[in-house]
Structures are given as C-alpha cells and as structure tokens.
C-alpha cells in the first residue's frame, strides 16, 4: 500500500543496527575509540528513520514488508502500524538519549557499543515483526545482548546476576516457544494476521488455550511480574550505570509490547474474552505485581533496587490494563497501556540516568546517601523530582495520563477492585518517591556525611581523613555547577562499591551534557503528558481495526 522507500524502512531499521554492531569490534582492531561514534551515527539515523516511518504510518496506515518476497503464509512479514511505531520511536529515542549520556559517563570500550547496537536491533525486531516465531528469535537476540550488558559490570556480582537472568530468561523464552508450538500445531501458521483468522476456527481449541497459558507464563517472566520477577532487581542493580537506563527502559517494555500485540492482534480480544479464565488470570498477575512491586520498592534501601522494584509494579499496571482489555473489551484501557509503556520507558530511563549521575559524582547509592542532593546538584535533583512525581502520576506528567486511561477503562468495565488497586498503588508509589524527595530536599547534607561515615579507610585512600571531610564540606556548599578536584576524589567513596559503574575510568566530573540528558527526559515526560490526547488520536485507527 506504500511504495518505494517507506516499504524498505522496517527491514532497514532492524538490519542496520545489527550490521553496525560488527563495526565497533572490527574498527577497534585499528582504531581505539570508534565505538561511540558508530553507535551515535547509527542510533541517530534510526531515530530519524523511525520518525519518518511514523509520519508515513500516520498518513497512510500500516506499512508492511514481506521479507524475500515469500508470501506471509510461510514467509516472514514485518509490520509497522500505529501501536508498533510508538515502541519503535521509544526504543530509538531512548537509545539515542542514553548514548548521549554514555559519551562522558557510561561504560566505554568497543564491545559495550557492540552489545548496545545488538540490543537496539533486537528490540526493533520485536517491535516490527509480524511472525510469532520470528518474535521468539528477536526476544532471544535482545536478551543475549542484555545478558552481555549486565555482565559487563565490574564486580563479580554482575556475572552472577547475569547468569540468573540468563537461566530465567531462557526458560521464559522457551515457555513462549512451547506456546507457539501449541498454537502452530492447532493452526499450521505462524503469521500473526493468519493466526488471527485461524485461531477461532481451529478444531483443537484445547491446544490454543494451552498455548496461551504457556505464553502468559513466558511473558510474565520476561516482563518481570511477581513472583517471576526475581531476576530483575539484581540484573538492574548490577548492570553498569550507563547500561541500566537502556535495559530498564526498553527490554521489559518490548516484551510487554509483544504480549499486548499477541493479545489484540493474534488471539484477539473477543476470542480471549470467551476463553475460560484468561481474563482473570492476566488481571490477577497484573494486580498482584502492582501491589507486590510497590511494597517491595518501599522497603528497599538502594536507589537502583528501589527503581527496579518500581518497574515490577509499573509493568504490573500495563498487564492489568491488558486484563481489563480482555475482560471488558476496553479501548480506553488499551490506550492507557500503550501510553504507560512509552511514558514508563522515558521515566525509568531518566530516573536511572539520574541515579547514574549521582553515583558517578558522589558514589551515593542508598536512599540515605541522597541527603542534601538538592543543595549540591539542584538541576539533577530538580529533574529527578519531576520524574518521580511523573512516576507517581501527578498531572500533567505522562505517568498520570497512562494511569488515568487504565483506571478509566477499569471503571468503564466495572472492575472496581482493579480501580482500587491502581489507586492504592499510586499511594504506595508516593511512599517511596516521597522518601527519596524528602532525603534530597529536606535532609541536610551533614546527615549524609554521618550516614556514610562508616568508611574511614576509604576516605584515607582519597588523601587522608581531614581532606576527605573537607571535601565533603566543600561539596555541601557547592552549588553543583562547579566541581572541585576534591569532590571528584570523593566520588570514589567505595561505600557504594568501587567501580560498580563498570567503566573502570579515572574520576570524571559530571559533564553538562549528562545533566542535559536527564533534563530533556524530564521535559519530555511532562510534554508527553500534555500530548495524551494526541496519543489517543494517533492510536485511533489501530484501535478501531482491532476492536471493530
């Protein structure tokens, strides 16, 4: 239906990053630092291409590409429609933003950028594929890159976290593959559109129900739903600071997107609504994760761990929205899920980047160590506060819009317990967000010095006890714009775990560019909140097609 160049964009978006992933290593044989430039050119190009594709989809509807010209019954089709293009824009946008951060702050080395580009390629593949088996392959490609990124942290703990993630992630993807096998057995096709036609007419319905059950378990693990989330906090915590924002913002988001795609496009809402207990199972998994995730987040001391558990609950909201979609056939809840996926991706990227900046400059990793941050780094603290409020769901930020649509859908479908769960989770989210905000704005920095005073030996490595303390005083009076060399010295306070940011670099002050990235994230989070209605309008053609 579209002609010429636009038709080629979906395969190009997947192939370009995967091919470019070979360049940093190949060029690394001759030149030292090519990784970042290659990755920057590629991701910026991908973002531009995604924008162009989005405008084409907006103007002319879905763009499809049949790989190799094989018909979709046994070939692979790539599809960009309104739902997938949102995720493509998110993936490319966040990848570009995080990359800008890693120029100064992130892990260096060509292999890091190879894994980075592979991950982006895998995620774009998940978003664009129209074939359920191909989806499995891309899930595994992105997972493999994620394992590599997680294990690139400096400490040995990161290898343990990555192995745990690998075993659970592989079993989860295999569960999905079993589900695909069952569905394939009943219908004989793997293409999503063909499946949508074949599933309601299949003779052996039990096979399809079993298949859906396996798919739910697989994605519940991949999206980190309670109680299958156990890989996620340690993976997020142990990954290098520059890699966590990317992983946290995108990997589970892409899986959650894929699950939503399977629900609305492959199984279709009407069919799932008639499947016994499908809706209640998905709803229960989502609601329990929302509550368990927030409660676990509230009791965490480490900021990165807290944000990781918060992801469990935020994705719980998305899965809950899918449950509402199945139970009530609610378009509103689906719009909410799509907005929340995008919004949460941007929020988590921003929050983890802020945590990375704070860890880089002060070695602060626990909530207590964030005391007085507002004085020392007003811009970082301000951006973080905006992002935290957005996460809680304070209007007009994007976190509010997504939650609002989901809650509205739940009310429309008369699922009152779900509405109550969303309300309760907002309160609990406020509990952990407020704890961090209180530390940053209302606890004096002196409290921080005594809070992490349990390391005289560590201070000694910074050039003596007195100097170290003086450095902290300097820090406390510093308005955050200028870094003293001493302050840079304090940044290697090993109470936070030396070199866990995984770069092994020399002490680097935080550059203005790094701060600018999170400020942009905060602005985007608020701006997208105002654009909530635009989102709904953009999704409208997709929704009318799916929900008839």
């Amino acid at each position, binding site marked *: 239906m579209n002609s010429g160049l636009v038709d080629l964009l979906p395969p190009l978006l997947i192939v370009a990053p995967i091919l470019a992933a070979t360049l940093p290593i190949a060029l690394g044989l001759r030149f030292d630092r090519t990784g970042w430039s290659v990755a920057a050119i590629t991701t910026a190009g991908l973002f531009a291409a995604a924008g162009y594709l989005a405008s084409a989809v907006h103007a002319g509807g879905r763009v499809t590409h049949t790989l190799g010209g094989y018909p979709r019954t046994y070939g692979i089709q790539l599809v960009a429609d309104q739902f997938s293009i949102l995720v493509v824009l998110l993936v490319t946008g966040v990848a570009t933003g995080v990359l800008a951060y890693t120029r100064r702050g992130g892990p260096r080395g060509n292999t890091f950028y190879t894994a980075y580009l592979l991950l982006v390629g895998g995620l774009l593949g998940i978003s664009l594929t129209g074939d359920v088996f191909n989806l499995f392959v891309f899930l595994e490609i992105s997972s493999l890159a994620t394992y590599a990124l997680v294990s690139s942290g400096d400490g*040995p703990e990161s290898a*343990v976290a990555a192995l745990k993630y*690998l075993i659970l992630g592989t*079993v989860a993807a295999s569960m999905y593959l079993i589900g695909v*096998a069952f569905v394939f057995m009943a219908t004989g096709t793997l293409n999503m559109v063909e499946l949508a036609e074949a599933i309601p007419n299949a003779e052996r319905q039990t096979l399809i129900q079993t298949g859906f059950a396996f798919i739910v378990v697989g994605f519940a693990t991949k999206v980190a739903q309670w109680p299958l989330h156990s890989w996620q906090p340690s993976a997020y915590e142990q990954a290098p600071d520059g890699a966590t924002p990317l992983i946290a913002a995108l990997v589970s988001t892409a899986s959650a997107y894929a699950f939503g795609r399977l629900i609305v496009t492959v199984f279709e809402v009407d069919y799932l609504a008639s499947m016994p207990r499908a809706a209640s199972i998905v709803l229960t998994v989502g609601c329990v994760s929302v509550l368990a995730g927030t409660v676990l987040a509230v009791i965490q001391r480490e900021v990165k761990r807290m944000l990781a558990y918060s992801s469990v609950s935020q994705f719980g909201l998305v899965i809950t929205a899918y449950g509402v979609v199945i139970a009530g056939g609610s378009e509103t809840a689906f719009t909410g899920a799509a907005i929340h996926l995008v919004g949460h991706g941007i929020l988590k990227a921003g929050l983890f980047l802020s945590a990375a900046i704070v860890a880089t400059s002060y070695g602060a990793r626990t909530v207590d160590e964030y005391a007085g941050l507002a004085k020392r780094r007003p811009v970082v603290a301000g951006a973080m506060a905006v992002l935290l409020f957005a996460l809680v769901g304070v209007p007009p930020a994007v976190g509010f819009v997504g939650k609002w649509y989901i809650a509205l859908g739940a009310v429309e479908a008369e699922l009152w317990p779900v509405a109550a769960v969303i309300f309760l989770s907002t309160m609990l989210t406020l509990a952990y967000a407020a704890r961090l905000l209180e530390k940053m704005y209302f606890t004096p920095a002196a409290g921080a010095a005594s809070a992490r005073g349990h390391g005289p030996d560590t201070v000694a490595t910074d050039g003596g006890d007195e100097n170290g303390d003086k450095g902290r005083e300097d820090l406390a009076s510093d308005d955050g714009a200028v870094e003293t060399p001493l302050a840079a010295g304090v940044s290697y306070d090993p109470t936070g775990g030396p070199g866990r940011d995984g770069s092994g670099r020399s002490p680097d002050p935080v550059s203005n560019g790094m701060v600018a990235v999170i400020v942009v994230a905060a602005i985007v989070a608020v701006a997208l909140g105002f654009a909530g209605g635009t989102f709904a309008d953009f999704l409208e053609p997709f929704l009318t097609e799916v929900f008839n």
Partner: protein
Amino acid sequence: MIELLASRYTYVLMFVLLGIGIYMTIASENLVKKLIGVNLFQTAIFLFFISMAYIDVEGASAPIVPHHGEPGEVMVASPLPQVIVLTAIVVGIALTAVGLALIIRIYSEYGTLREDTLREVRADE
C-alpha cells in the same frame, strides 16, 4: 488410551525430557548442570516441533523433494517446523556459549561452581 500412546509416544517422550530439563535447572546446585538442564529443556521443545510435523501427516517422509516419484505420490512432512527449529538451535547455541562464559567468570572470581557454596561466599563478603 494405549492406541493414543502408541501413535503419540514421541509427545510423551518430549514432555518427559522437558520435565527432566526443568527439574535439573531448578534442583541441581551445580551451575554447569543447571545450564545443561536449560539445554535439555530447549532440545525437548525442538524435538516437539520436529515430531509435530511428522505426526500430523500420516506416514510422511523427510521434507526433501525426491528426484523421482510423481507429484502427490510421496507424503512429505511440513518443512516449516524444521526450518524454524534450525534457527532456534542457533539461538540455543549462542545462549549456551554466553552462559558458559558467565560460569567461567563466576568460577574464576569465586572459585566454585556450586550454587550453595556461591551463596555462602557472597554472604561472607
């Protein structure tokens, strides 16, 4: 029931293999054995795909177009599962390689392959 088992015995075998694989993954304390369990689990799924293609077409032969024989005379198993399993095997190999690399790193850092010992060592630190 017996008849069903006789014709579908491969499915039963595959799911026994699947069970052994997931049990090894969960119960074995040795990290390498855990990874072997994951491999077994995946292999069972691959075999499930393959046997599915043969059972649905009664008396089918391997999906290779014979150079003799009339069209429609030879029953051929569906080639699609075989093709996708080939891809899945490649993915599985990559996963095993990454997993083994991580295990080597863990071994060199902690000097143990056993998960319970590993837990103790990490708790001590």
